């Protein structure tokens, strides 16, 4: 387990790379989905009026 965490002595670079990637892709997905659901609800509301 500790060998995995140490990443052959490069943990300070490998784990942040994974962290930044998960964060970046998560932001892209979350913001895209939030904008989509908001636009859909707004349009449905306007079309009902």
């Amino acid at each position: 387990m500790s060998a995995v965490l140490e990443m052959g002595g490069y943990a300070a670079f490998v784990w942040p790379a994974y962290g930044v990637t998960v964060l970046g892709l998560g932001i892209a997905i979350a913001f895209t989905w939030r904008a989509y659901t908001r636009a859909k609800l707004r349009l449905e509301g306007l079309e009902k009026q």
Partner: protein
Amino acid sequence: MASMFALANPKRFMDASAQFLPWLVGAAALALAAGFVLGFLAPPDYQQGDTVKIMFLHVPAAWTAMMAYGLMALTSLFSLVWRHPLADVAAKSAAPLGAIFTVLGLVTGSLWGRPMWGTYWVWDARLTSFLLLLFLYLGYIALWNAIEDEVRAARAASILALVGAVNLPIIEFSVNWHTLHQGESIMRADGPQISTVFLWPLGLSALGYTLLFLALWTVRIRTEIMQRRARSLMLGDHA
């Protein structure tokens, strides 16, 4: 080409994308998961050690950032020349995603560079032209936000996207111009120069990033179409 022009109708695009989007999302999730798992389990490289795992994050991000800009420039061309109603929507929708993938490429590249090159950053042709790609994305987004009239904004942003496309071949070929960045090792005439144990996770990750971009791009285009429809409904109410 003809089917692409047929899809340029917003109504047809909404209908068609509702059909293919779930499949696209599923394929992206599968490819990304497979790429991440295989990449994480890949053995250390004889030179790079475990930093080789960063390659499975960096290369697909950089590839997707460049592909996104290429698609943005292409749809900008369609917007300027053929005035397709969906073209500027597609170009506008690609920019924020492209910017995020560019940031991922820059940050993961720096995290790989520090242990391998001894520095996070050098102002050489490859790294600088890739940083310029981020500024082009940010400039494109800023231009859209700065001009209120959508038609004028689309035209100005399309011109910027097309001018900025000159940077793509510069990024591609700059690995041959006195840079710390390693040369081409995959798309070579004599075949890939990396071991298959690294080629598979790299290929699957690249496929996953590409499909994820296409899925998110589709959702953003759908969002923009709905927002424009809502604006036109509101304007109709106030007219």
